């Protein structure tokens, strides 16, 4: 489970759809692995406006990364700054949660992550 995907995932429980605290999901007991992936600056620039920067800051501090700047860079800044691209790429794509749990702050539902795959199957009464 990449940090990029985590930034887009919300709690799947129906009752949580209307609550703002159901996003972002909080990683718990997370084991991280680092993967070597080729840098794709165009993709990052494309995705940047869609990232929820506040949520990304929360996630990265919860995973024990150095704090991110308070304001997201603009697309032009990102395009110009090679180091920033590499840092973001490292955090969003190369860092993966291999084992652990994702917890919804609203309903407390725990989504297990095993071998990097999060289990979002719900029992039918929560759908």
């Amino acid at each position, binding site marked *: *489970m*990449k940090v*990029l*995907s985590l930034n*887009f*995932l*919300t*709690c*799947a429980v*129906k009752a949580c759809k209307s609550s703002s605290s159901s*996003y972002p999901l909080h990683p718990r007991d997370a084991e991280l692995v680092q993967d070597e*992936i080729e840098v*794709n600056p*165009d*993709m990052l620039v*494309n*995705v940047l406006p*869609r990232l*929820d920067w506040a949520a990304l800051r929360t996630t990265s501090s919860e995973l024990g990364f150095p704090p991110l700047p308070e304001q997201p860079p603009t697309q032009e800044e990102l395009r110009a700054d090679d180091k920033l691209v590499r840092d973001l790429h490292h955090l969003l*794509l190369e860092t993966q949660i291999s084992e652990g749990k994702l917890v919804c702050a609203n309903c407390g539902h725990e989504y297990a992550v095993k*071998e*990097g*795959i*999060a*289990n*979002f*199957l*719900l029992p*039918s009464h929560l*759908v």
Partner: protein
Amino acid sequence: MSRPEDSLAADVHYDDTEARKYTTSSRIQNIQASMTRRALELLDLKSPSLILDVGCGSGLSGEILSAVDPSDGGPHTWIGMDVSPSMLDIALQRDVEGDLLLADIGQGVPFRAGTFDAAISISAIQWLCSAESSETSPTGRLNRFFNGLYASLRRGGRAVCQFYPKNDTQRNMITQAAVKAGFGAGILEDDPGTKNVKLYLVLTVGNNGGEGGNTDITGVVDGMDNVDVLDARKRLKANNAQLKKGSKAWIVKKKEQMERKGKIVKATSKYTGRKRRVQF
């Protein structure tokens, strides 16, 4: 042709042996690859994008998404959803590049609004038409899926879903659910009338980059070779043109209606619907 959809649920059918058979069959690999390439052509992505792969299975389609050449706007980053753990296990062994998620698309799409540039689905959504327990209905599952998909795509995004409907009822059920969710929907049929017919449900969200004119499938296939557009909506509009009340055409139409009902109607002549001469 056998249809596993009829007998079992997707996660039960694709167990370890079935998933391995599916992934190692070179015939299936070829068909999947060509369908994925066709879907990519329909998506028409210009720059590296974030794509949702619905029913990614062992990542056969995802591999092609990651391998798109930079000159064609690739490589794309994708996130795959599938309901079968065995399929995802094989995807792990094959070391695919995308992120994987074990989730049932009939329960919705758990991403926040406007996440993806595009979505792709190869041979998956017909599984939604069979409900495995009495608590869920195919319509409910289809609605949850398309509503979730609609929300998770950004405005101007596209989704291409290749699927194998069992019959026309299923085909209509799927398209109607997509239209109900708010998509501009249309079906592209490859090799129609043959055994190898392939259906692509092309879904569009909002305005497509302001090209003007058609934002739905007719705009998507515009400029493609060998595509005939059959638009059922235009014919409907022409028929709906209102006849002026009291005009000759209107009277004749009414007389025909009455005749069909079995009423006695005077014969239509050159005097029908004509005004009387003013007497003074």
